[in-house]
C-alpha cells in the first residue's frame, strides 16, 4: 500500500516531460530517446503494478491518500480496481507504441520535437491520472489536463484542417466537461459531509430527482468524449487531422475516458438514475452503432473511415453499459480495451500507408496486396479483428455485449447487429480498395512495411490474438469489480 506505485505511474511522464524541457532544442535524438525511455519506464511500472494487483478483489487497491485542498475536502486520492487497471495498462501500452510511432513517422516540423514530446508526456500524465483518480476533483483536473496537450498536438502537427479540428475537439470536450464540473459540484454539496472522495460518496444515498439531473450533467461530459451519437462530430475531424500517433492515442485511450467515466462515476453515484436512463442510452448506443457503420461505409478517406468505425464500435461499449448486467458490463469493458488495441493498430497502419503514399484516398489505391504483402497481412489482421472475427479479441467483447444487451432488449440487439454486418462491409470494402485488384501504377515505388513499424504493431497483435483466444486473461481482473458495481446498481448478477 505504501509503495506509491500509482503516483509514480502518474507522474513519471511528467518528470520525463520536465527532462525534455530542460534539454537543448537542437539535440533532437536526446529528446526522442528520453521520451521513449519515459514511456518505457511507465510501461514497466505498470507491469510492476500488475504484479501487485489482486485480480480477485472487488474494491479499490493500492490506494494513496493525502489531503490536497483541505478547505474543500479535496484529496489526492488515487487507487485502482478492475475497471481502471485495464485502462491504465492500455494507456501505458498505447503511449509506448505511439511514442515509438512518433520516432518513426511523425512529420515533426523543424525544431519542434521538443514541444512535441513535452506535450506528449504531459498528455500521458493526464490520461493516467484520469484513470487512477478516485477523487472527483482530482479526476476533473486530470480530465482537463488531457485536453490542452491534445489541442496542441492536433493543432501543430496535424493535417491541413488541423486548426479547425483542434479547436473543435477542444471546445466540444470542454463544453461537456464544464457541465460535468457542475455535476461534480452538485454531488459535492449534496453529500454530507461534503466530500469528493468516491470511496465515501458511493456509500451515500441520493435523491432520485437529483440523481437524474446530475446524471445528465455527467452524461454530457462523458457522452461528448465517447462520443455518443449526436455529439460525435468532433471525432472524424480530430482523428483525420491528428498526426498518426496522436490518432492512435485519441482512439486508443481518450475515447475510453468517456465510457470509463460512466462505469466509474455515473453508475455508482446515480444507480437509480442510471436505470432510468437505461433505455435512452441503449437507443443512443444503437443509433451510434448503425449510424457510424453507415457513414463509415460512405467514406473515401481511409482515416475517416476508421474514425467513423470508432463511433460504431464505441456504440457497442455503450450498449454493453446500457444493458446493465454482468455480460454487458464485461463486454463493454473488454470492448474498451480491445477497441483501443485494434483501432490504435488501424490508425498506425493508416499512418504507415500515408507516410509512403501521402494520400489517404481509398479509391486511389488498389492492388497493394502484391506490392506490400507484409502490410497487407497486418492490415487484414487488424481489419478482421475490427469486424469481430472470432479468435480475435473484438469478437469476444462484441459477443458479450450483445449477450448482455439481449437480456435487456431484443430489438436493440437485433438492430445493433446491423452494425456487425456493416463493419464487415466497410472494412472489407476498404481492403478491397486498398489491397486487392490491379496495382495502380502510381504506387509501384512503395516499399513494404519496415521492421520498426512491425515492432510497433506486434504487441497489439499479440494482445488481440491472446485475448481473442483466451479472454479470461483480462476478464479475470475485471469480473469481481464489475459484479460489485452491479450490486450497487441493484441488479442481481445474472
Amino acid at each position, binding site marked *: 500500500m505504501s509503495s506509491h506505485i500509482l503516483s509514480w505511474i502518474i507522474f513519471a511522464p511528467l518528470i520525463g516531460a520536465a527532462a525534455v524541457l530542460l534539454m537543448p532544442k537542437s539535440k533532437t535524438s536526446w529528446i526522442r530517446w528520453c521520451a521513449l525511455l519515459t514511456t518505457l519506464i511507465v510501461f514497466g511500472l505498470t507491469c510492476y503494478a500488475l504484479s501487485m494487483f489482486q485480480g480477485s478483489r472487488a474494491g479499490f487497491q493500492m490506494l494513496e491518500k493525502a489531503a490536497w485542498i483541505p478547505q474543500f475536502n479535496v484529496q489526492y486520492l488515487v487507487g485502482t480496481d478492475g475497471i481502471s487497471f485495464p485502462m491504465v495498462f492500455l494507456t501505458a501500452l498505447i503511449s509506448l507504441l505511439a511514442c515509438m510511432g512518433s520516432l518513426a513517422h511523425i512529420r515533426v516540423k523543424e525544431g519542434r520535437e521538443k514541444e512535441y514530446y513535452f506535450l506528449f508526456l504531459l498528455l500521458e500524465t493526464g490520461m493516467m491520472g484520469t484513470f487512477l483518480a478516485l477523487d472527483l476533483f482530482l479526476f476533473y483536473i486530470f480530465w482537463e489536463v488531457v485536453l490542452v496537450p491534445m*489541442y496542441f498536438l492536433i493543432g501543430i502537427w496535424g493535417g491541413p484542417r488541423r486548426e479547425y479540428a483542434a479547436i473543435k475537439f477542444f471546445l466540444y470536450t470542454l463544453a461537456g466537461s464544464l457541465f460535468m464540473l457542475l455535476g461534480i459540484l452538485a454531488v459535492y454539496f449534496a453529500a454530507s459531509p461534503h466530500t469528493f472522495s468516491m470511496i465515501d460518496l458511493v456509500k451515500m444515498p441520493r435523491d432520485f430527482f437529483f440523481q437524474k439531473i446530475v446524471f445528465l450533467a455527467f452524461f454530457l461530459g462523458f457522452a461528448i468524449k465517447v462520443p455518443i451519437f449526436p455529439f460525435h462530430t468532433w471525432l472524424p475531424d480530430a482523428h483525420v487531422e491528428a498526426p498518426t500517433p496522436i490518432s492512435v492515442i485519441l482512439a486508443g485511450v481518450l475515447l475510453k475516458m468517456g465510457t470509463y467515466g460512466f462505469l466509474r462515476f455515473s453508475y455508482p453515484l446515480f444507480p437509480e438514475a442510471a436505470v432510468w436512463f437505461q433505455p435512452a442510452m441503449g437507443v443512443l448506443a444503437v443509433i451510434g452503432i448503425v449510424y457510424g457503420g453507415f457513414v463509415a461505409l460512405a467514406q473515401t478517406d481511409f482515416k475517416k473511415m476508421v474514425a467513423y468505425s470508432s463511433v460504431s464500435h464505441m456504440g457497442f461499449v455503450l450498449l454493453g453499459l446500457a444493458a446493465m448486467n454482468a455480460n454487458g458490463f464485461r463486454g463493454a469493458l473488454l470492448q474498451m480495451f480491445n477497441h483501443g488495441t485494434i483501432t490504435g493498430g488501424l490508425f498506425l497502419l493508416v499512418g504507415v500507408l500515408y507516410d509512403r503514399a501521402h494520400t489517404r484516398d481509398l479509391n486511389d489505391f488498389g492492388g497493394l496486396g502484391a506490392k506490400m504483402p507484409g502490410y497487407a497481412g497486418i492490415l487484414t489482421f487488424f481489419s478482421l479483428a475490427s469486424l469481430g472475427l472470432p479468435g480475435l479479441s473484438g469478437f469476444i467483447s462484441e459477443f458479450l455485449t450483445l449477450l448482455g444487451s439481449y437480456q435487456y432488449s431484443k430489438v436493440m440487439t437485433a438492430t445493433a447487429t446491423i452494425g456487425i454486418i456493416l463493419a464487415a462491409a466497410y472494412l472489407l470494402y476498404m481492403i478491397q480498395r486498398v489491397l486487392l485488384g490491379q496495382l495502380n501504377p502510381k504506387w509501384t515505388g512503395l516499399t513494404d512495411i519496415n521492421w520498426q513499424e512491425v515492432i510497433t504493431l506486434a504487441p497489439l497483435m499479440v494482445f488481440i490474438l491472446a485475448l481473442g483466444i483466451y479472454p479470461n486473461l483480462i476478464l479475470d481482473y475485471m469480473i469481481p469489480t464489475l459484479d460489485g458495481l452491479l450490486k450497487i446498481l441493484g441488479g442481481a448478477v445474472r
Partner: protein
Amino acid sequence: MNTVESLKYFIPELILLVGAFFVFTIDFFVKNKRIVSGLTLLTLTLSLCFVKQPETALPLFYDFFHLDNFAHFFRYFALIAVFITLLLSYSYTPIRNQYEGEFYGLFLFMAFALILVATANNLLMIFLSVEFLSLLSYLLVGFLKNDRKAKEAAIKYLLFGSVCSAIMLYGMSLAYGASGSLELSTIGNTFFFAPFKPLALVAMLFFLVGLGFKISMAPFHMWAPDVYEGAPTPVTAFLSVAPKALGFAILFRIMAVGFLSLGRPPSLILTALSMLTMTLGNITAISQNNMKRFLAYSSIAQAGYILMGLAVLSKLGKESILIYLLAYLFTNLGAFAVAILVEEKTGNEDLAAFSGLSQRSPVTAAMMAVFLLSLAGIPPLAGFIGKYYVFAAALQAKFIMLAVIAAINSVVAAYYYFRIVRLMYLTPASGPVFSAAPKSITVVLCLTLVVVLAMGIFPSFFLDRILS
C-alpha cells in the same frame, strides 16, 4: 477609535502619502527618472512591509477607515497591483518619454485611493474614495501627450464615470434620507422594514450603477473597451484589475451590509446582470482584433463570473470573489505583461502581432499560453480555482441556471482565448526572433507565472491565507 490612536495602524498608508509627495517634489529636481521610479518602488515595498493583519476589525478614525480582514486583503491586493503595474510601466516607452515622475506619483496616490475604497464603511467614505479612484483613473488614462486615442478615452471615461457617480450619489442621498445615517449598518437595519423596500431597491440599483461602472458590469460596461484601448497599456492592465477588484470589494460590502435584508431580489438582479455581463463580454470578444480591446472584453466577461459570487451573497460567495480576484490579478497582469512586451517589440497592438510567437520567443509564448489557459479556467491553473469557486458558490446556493449559463460562456471564452493560442502556435512566424525582454517585465512575468501555477497546483496555501 480616535485619530491619534488610529495612526499606528495607518503607517503603510502614511508611507504611501509621504512617498507620493516626496516623489512629486524630487521629480522637479532630478533629471534621472530611474531614481524616481526606484523611489516609488521603495515606497511601495516599505508600505507592503508595514502592512499588518488586524486581529479584530479596527474602526480607525471614528470608523471612517474600517480596517478588517476583508479590507486587509485588499490592502495587499492594491499594493501588489500597483507594484506590478509600475514594473510594467517602467519599460513602456511612451510613458518613459514624458512626465514619468508624475505618473509614478499619481500611482502612489492611486494605491492610497484603492486602500480607501477597501476600508470605506459609510456613504461618505464610499463616495469620496470612489471619486478619488475615478479621478485618478481619468487622469492616468489621458496621461499620454498628443495621443488622440488616450484623450478620447479619458474624456469618455470621465463623462461616463461622472454621470454614474452622480446617479450613485442620488441613490446615496435617498438611502441617507430613509435611514437618517451614513452608516451602512444603520441603512441595512432600516431597509429591514417592509415599507422601505421599494426605496431600498431603487437605492441599490443606483449603487449598482455607480459601482457597476467600476467593475464594468453590463450594461454599465460600455466605456471599458474604448477606454482600455485608448489608455497606455500599463494603465489598461491596471484598470482591468485593481479598480475592478476594489469595486467588487465595496459592492460586496454594500450588498452584504446595506441590502442583505432585501432577501432575494438583489440576488436575482445580480444574477441577471452576471449572465448579461459574461455573455456580452464573451460574445463581443470573439471578433476583436486589437489586443487591448480583446482583453477588455475578456475582463468584462471575467467580471461576469465574479458577479456570480456576488449574486449568491453567501460566505462561499465572498470567498469565491476574493479567490477569483486574486487569481485574476496575477493572470491578467501576466497576460498584459506579455501584451506589453509584444507591443514593445513589434510596435503593434493588433492580435496579428502574436502570430508565430512560439517560434519568435518560445518562452513568452508559453507564458502567454499559460495565462490564457488560466483565464479560460483550465486546470491546474489559478483561473480554474477561481472559476471552480464561483461555480461552487452558485451551485451551493442552487443558482443552477446561472451556473449553466456560466459554463456555456466558459466554452465561448475558451474559443476566443484559443484564438491567440492558435496565432502563437499554429500560425507561421511573421517577424524576427525577439531580443531579450526588459528586466522589469521579466520579473513580472516570472512572478505572475509562478503564482498562477502555484495557485492552481497548491491552492490550499493561498486559501489558508485568504480565508483566515
